[in-house]
């Protein structure tokens, strides 16, 4: 049960969230030509989901490469993007509704899952599990978050009920495997994977959905169980992720508005801002080693590279880097660092647009030192671009929808998050 005082607190949070444009905190004024460019990038990036979502099953391909499987995380971003596209007039209400409905049909009837957790990679044509993939906790969370968000744009329609049912059937408690941490996944052949979400990463969205569940509730102690390791870089103290990849500071923030939430003294919005600045500084520090890193070119995050997909990142964290810049990294941080991110976006677009910008927006990554340019787009990277730009350009539009969801309100209450201004 949510008490009156808690409802009042949540209402207060909304009031705060909805009262200020997100970049008001930065005293940042977006130039009109920048707004036009960002809108174009958002719209072009959205096109990925139109082109690479199977018209029959509504499952979205992991990448634009021929033969790529469908990814449930990419499908979650696609659901969110269809709703956003409807709001922006890139799809009619009816078209967006039908696309979301088609995906829901597949998720309800065909898509392979275990206790509501979907397998990471599915056959885009049939929804069957492929590549021996695991029933994935984080990818299911991103999918369910996308479904709940999409449905919230279609208030009063059957989509709301259907998204809720998909959410309610996920047995979050099972994925703990008897511990107070969430396991990465489960395979029918070997059982639970030997990996757990035990420190700060992109799994906050998984925690939020699970703690907000009434059908498969998890102990509220789970929220406190994972480590908030803090390290300092150039005087910035950061609750850091193992890889130091920017996406780990972005994914949960695409859905959840952390601006006014305080977790035991930690402000995750500000933490992501510091992690982004640190990422920029880390690249600047290594400018002599890699010519790709330049004044307005930074952004280390998991992406394709000349030697394959790698979890590039900065310190704090393991800080793996080889001169490869993920195009989405700075864009995905635009809500945290509007000035710095905008400079990167404009530089990439104007200086390297010829090689890097295609019909579906920025291709995944590039590395000037190796003269390597990605030819592919990745679904999840396109998704974070669309969602973060929507939050940035439309005054936290995604956040406004997502934060109103009852399960999110329950999570705030159970995790004992407080208003950071109090």
């Amino acid at each position: 049960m949510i008490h009156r005082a808690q409802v009042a607190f949540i209402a207060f949070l909304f009031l705060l969230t909805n009262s200020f444009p997100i970049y008001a905190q930065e005293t940042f004024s977006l130039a009109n030509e920048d707004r036009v460019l960002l809108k174009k990038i958002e719209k072009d990036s959205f096109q990925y989901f139109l082109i690479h979502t199977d018209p029959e099953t509504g499952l979205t391909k992991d990448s634009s490469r021929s033969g790529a499987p469908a990814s449930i995380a990419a499908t979650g971003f696609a659901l969110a993007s269809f709703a956003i596209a409807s709001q922006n007039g890139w799809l009619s209400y009816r078209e967006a509704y039908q696309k979301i409905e088609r995906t829901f049909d597949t998720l309800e009837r065909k898509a392979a899952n275990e206790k509501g957790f979907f397998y990471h990679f599915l056959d885009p044509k049939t929804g069957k599990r492929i590549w021996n993939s695991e029933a994935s906790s984080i990818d299911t969370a991103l999918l369910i978050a996308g479904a709940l968000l999409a449905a919230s744009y279609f208030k009063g329609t059957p989509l709301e009920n259907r998204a809720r049912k998909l959410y309610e059937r996920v047995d979050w408690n099972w994925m703990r495997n008897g511990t107070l941490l969430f396991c990465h996944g489960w395979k029918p052949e070997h059982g639970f994977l030997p990996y757990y979400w035990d420190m700060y990463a992109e799994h906050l969205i998984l925690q939020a959905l699970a703690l907000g569940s009434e059908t498969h509730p998890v102990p509220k102690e789970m929220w406190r169980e994972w480590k908030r390791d803090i390290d300092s870089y150039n005087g910035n103290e950061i609750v850091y992720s193992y890889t130091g990849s920017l996406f780990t500071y972005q994914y949960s923030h695409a859905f959840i508005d952390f601006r006014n939430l305080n977790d035991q003294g930690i402000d995750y919005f500000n933490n992501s801002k510091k992690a982004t600045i640190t990422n920029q500084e880390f690249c600047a520090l290594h400018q002599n080693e890699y010519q790709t890193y330049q004044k307005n070119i930074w952004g280390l995050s998991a992406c394709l590279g000349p030697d394959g997909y790698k979890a590039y990142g900065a310190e704090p964290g393991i800080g793996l880097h080889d001169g490869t810049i993920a195009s989405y990294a700075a864009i995905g941080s635009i809500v945290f660092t509007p000035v710095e991110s905008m400079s990167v976006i404009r530089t990439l677009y104007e200086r390297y647009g010829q090689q890097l910008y295609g019909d579906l927006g920025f291709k995944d990554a590039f590395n000037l030192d190796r003269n390597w340019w990605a030819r592919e787009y990745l679904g999840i990277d396109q998704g974070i671009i669309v969602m973060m730009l929507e939050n940035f350009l439309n005054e936290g539009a995604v956040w406004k929808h997502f934060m109103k969801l009852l399960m999110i309100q329950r999570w705030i209450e159970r995790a004992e998050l407080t208003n950071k201004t109090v």
Partner: protein
Amino acid sequence: MKTKNRRKHFLVDKSLQFHYLLYIVATLAIVAGVGMTGSYFGIWGSVVKTFSEESLHETMVTAAQINEYEQARRPSPKTTALPSIRTYQETSLLSERQKELIREIMDETNQKMLTLGALLLIFIGWGSIFLTHKIAGPIFKFGQYFQELAKGNLALRIKLRKFDEARNLELRFNEMAAALDATVAKMKRIAREMPRETALDELKKELSKIKTTSD
């Protein structure tokens, strides 16, 4: 001594039998053709497509990428440092994928074969009814005619459809019926029209032409 009712010639009605030979051979050819084509596209077509150079390349690239995803998500210095372990993981992933592909092909083939089998059964069933009707129809009509004949109705004539079998019999039976009809009609006319004293002789003369078991 009882003689065996053994046939001396198997081709007693060449036209009819060759006709049916053609029907059966054509049906079997269609069934075999459809079955073989179905098998080709169901099994070999899928195998050729799945293991074409282009598909294999795509699959290998995807295997490498999925393995890289795993490494990126769950980085472990041990596995990223050794290329041989990475190759082993990719090969293992590839092998799992190939098993999945074979399973998919078999499932798809079974599905196709079942559908094809059901369609062929329907086709054969419909064809059998169509063909047997060409024989069963005339036999039924002859049966009806014989019943009418037994009741004394000599005015009936058989009329078979254009493509029915036994059209020769139709002609002969109708000739027989016409002959019987004419004989009986003549006897009736004698009995009706001739003076009593001459009519009896005339009737005896006519009846003597008909051979019965009492003769």
